[in-house]
């Protein structure tokens, strides 16, 4: 049986995302059309079988007046409508965390099949738990309950990285050590506006609970990541929108399977694990 392609990071929205900067909308149907777009992977036609789908980040910024439940309403509706293709992802603006939100998160996981929590230090304006007393203590107070819930729910936490000052992969190190049984995915391999991939790899080397998501990553850094952390710890994500799944799949396929110097000559089997097998195991699909 062919290993499925599972996309770790997508967004849907009924309106523009004027925080990240794309629009005018990207509906669940648009995402499924992209998942089903004609493409060849390893020379044969293949769709993206499933996607983890998160709400538009614009709905979740600290200045948003929407409740946590309102931020996720469209994703909840879409996951119910396309339950065989879409898996819900939770964007947790940590300053919203309280008993009611905690109950909503448990309900989303237990009853609606949500399988991942997403944190974005840049957009939501917080430090990961660093060592400086005041900043670190505030971050621990805000974030540890979320990681405790992830531990209890047995779902991974994906953390956006790739720019100053909040989203440096090295700052994932502390929480990865504090919660060794929580699977933590470093999004974008540390690359967005700036490239901090090597930091991400150093954190992965220190903590076996760290996984690395591939959207935005340059091919040579995908290659370095496989050599450093092993193919079993890389997880394909498209970050669609604004990125396109086919191009992001090509990025992985070419970087891993092409002979050097374009790629690293990895096996098709290892590459399929990156494109879906690893995430399937992580999510216990």
């Amino acid at each position, binding site marked *: 049986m062919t290993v499925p392609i599972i996309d770790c990071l997508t967004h849907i929205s009924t309106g523009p*995302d004027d925080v990240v*900067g*794309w*629009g*005018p909308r*990207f509906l669940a149907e648009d995402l499924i059309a*992209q998942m089903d777009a*004609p*493409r060849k992977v390893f020379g044969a036609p293949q769709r993206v079988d499933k996607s983890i789908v998160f709400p538009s980040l614009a709905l979740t910024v600290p200045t948003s007046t929407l409740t946590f439940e309102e931020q996720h309403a469209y994703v909840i509706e879409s996951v119910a409508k396309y339950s065989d293709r879409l898996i819900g992802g939770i964007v947790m603006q940590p300053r919203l965390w309280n008993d009611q939100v905690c109950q909503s998160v448990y309900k989303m996981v237990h009853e609606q099949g949500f399988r991942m929590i997403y944190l974005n230090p840049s957009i939501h304006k917080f430090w990961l738990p660093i060592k400086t007393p005041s900043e670190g203590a505030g971050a621990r107070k805000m974030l540890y309950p979320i990681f405790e819930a992830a531990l209890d729910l047995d779902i991974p936490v994906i953390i956006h990285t790739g*720019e100053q000052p909040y989203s440096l992969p090295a700052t994932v190190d502390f929480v990865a050590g504090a919660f060794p049984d929580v699977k933590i995915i470093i999004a974008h391999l540390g*690359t*967005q*506006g*700036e*490239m901090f991939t090597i930091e991400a790899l150093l954190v992965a080397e220190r903590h076996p609970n760290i996984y690395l998501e591939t959207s*935005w990553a*340059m*091919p*040579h850094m995908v290659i370095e990541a496989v050599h450093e952390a092993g193919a079993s710890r890389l997880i394909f994500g498209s970050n*669609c*929108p*604004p*990125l*396109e799944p*086919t*191009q992001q799949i*090509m*990025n992985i396929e*070419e*970087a891993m399977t*092409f002979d*050097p*110097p*374009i*790629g690293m000559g990895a096996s098709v089997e290892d590459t399929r694990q990156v494109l879906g097998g690893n995430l399937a195991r992580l999510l216990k699909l």
Partner: protein
Amino acid sequence: MAYTIVDSHAHIIPQREPVWGWGPNFKVERLISMMDGDYDVMGEIKHVSKSLIMTGLGLTSIDQRSMLDAHEYPLASIKLFPDRLFLNAVVNPRNYVPEQLFMLKEWRTTSNLRMLKIHPSMHNYFLPGYSPFPSDVSKKMIYPIFEEASAMDMPVMIHMGETPYAMPAQIAPIAEAFPKVPIVVAHSGANNIPANANDAILLARTHANVYLGTSWVQPPELVQMYYAIGAEKMVWESDCSPQSIGQTLRMITNLHLAPPLGVGASKDDVYRMIGGNIAELCHIDY
């Protein structure tokens, strides 16, 4: 409009790249094989017709090779594929200027020379700026290269993408000193700092002779670029090797898609970006 694909930025080398380190080699036969691969461009299977090739940059930097020695392999390769390959000569201003520049005119006649490439990071210099030091020294190194480009009516490609030598705004003074010489900003400054592409966009908006290369640039900046400067100033680069042709080409042709993945660019606009612009700048039939 010819619907032809021309790659503005490729490297071939018969050995391990001695500075970047990639290897074991990237020979011309493999480049041609990759150019002839099947690429889905807006639903049609297409191939890369022509490429502007450079030597491995490290050969121009370490071991004190002459410009001729550093270009031995691409020059021989162009003789094998004269209808497919064109030379983008890498000029090391510290070692080749002015004594070795004479051979550029010869290469133009004999070896499909169509563009000059300079790389401030590889060769450790600041482009001419506004302060006397180091600009006075820099002008002595860089102006002769631009004078040659002007005399031969060809563009200069400038590597951009990291501090301290290769930040896009540093191009402004030389672009103003040689307003008739087209400048292609390699990687749009995004090589190691993706957000730098925003600075390159401003540079291209404010300087008519500045064009932006697309390798290493991320899709949101490509979208910005399209709206800010138009398809006629965008130039597809694969940077193969070490980048691949497939995913870099796909990133540009995706501008054909509707927002938010693209901008709904027309077929003509897409082919301008992936071939027409660089072919016209370099006087390559396409």
